[in-house]
């Protein structure tokens, strides 16, 4: 039986110690000793949320909370983990306002089509980042501005390179997205499951 002495600790430490012990050893019986009513109630509620049956024994000013559950019970998988299983965070970085090389007119058409079609990624499209010439797609008179504004309204996080806007003297013409910096871009890359560079 796993035993935790959490007397003298303020909430939520007793609950967190209980959580850590369960995740480490997945015990079928666990005893947690606390010395105040709030911690007693919170540890009980936490154990019950993990499918333990609880009982409390008072000994002087302490509460001995015991949680028991059937052998072989699987550790809890968080609801978030369940809901995102198979779901990816995709970051698309556009470093140009044209797709491919050869013919600029065709490249622009392709880029417009690409941005309009990005919605097919669904909720997996997590960040849309514009750098270098790509920032020109976020300014007034851009043909894809209504599409990008629609994406943003639907919750897509659009990031636009501030250095690039400044370089092209377009800082005050940007109409969509958050002006960002290289640290934010690198952090987003690190957090993303997949990065697509165009």
């Amino acid at each position, binding site marked *: 039986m796993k035993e935790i002495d959490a007397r003298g*600790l303020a909430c*939520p*430490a007793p609950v*967190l110690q209980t959580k850590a012990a369960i995740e480490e050893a997945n015990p079928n019986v666990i005893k947690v000793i606390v010395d105040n009513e*709030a911690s007693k109630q919170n540890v009980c509620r*936490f154990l019950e*949320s993990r499918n333990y049956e609880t009982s409390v024994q008072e000994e002087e000013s302490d509460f001995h909370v015991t949680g028991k559950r059937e052998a072989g019970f699987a550790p809890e998988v968080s609801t*978030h983990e369940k809901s995102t299983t198979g779901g990816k965070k995709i970051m698309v970085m556009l470093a140009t306002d044209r797709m491919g090389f050869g013919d600029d007119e065709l490249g622009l058409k392709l880029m417009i089509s690409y941005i309009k079609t990005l919605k097919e990624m669904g909720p997996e499209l997590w960040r849309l980042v514009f750098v270098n010439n790509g920032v020109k797609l976020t300014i007034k008179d851009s043909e894809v501005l209504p599409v990008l504004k629609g994406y943003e309204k639907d919750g897509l996080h659009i990031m636009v390179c501030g250095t690039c806007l400044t370089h092209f003297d377009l800082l005050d013409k940007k109409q969509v997205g958050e002006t960002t910096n290289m640290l934010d871009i690198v*952090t987003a890359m690190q957090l993303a499951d997949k990065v697509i560079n165009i």
Partner: protein
Amino acid sequence: MKFTFVCQEDNKIFESDRFRIIDDRGVLIDGSGNKTWDAKVELLSPCPFCGKKHIFDVNELVCPFI
């Protein structure tokens, strides 16, 4: 079971059940006999406001129930 956290960048409150205990150095007792748990909590999912996986001292966290 979700705990409440405060984004260290935006100071905004959010809830998450995706975290783990790290740097557990055990319970410390000061000269007056007061106990504190020296450990940290690391988010396993990015903060919904800034995208970072914050690390909090356990003593910064608020009680999730009462």
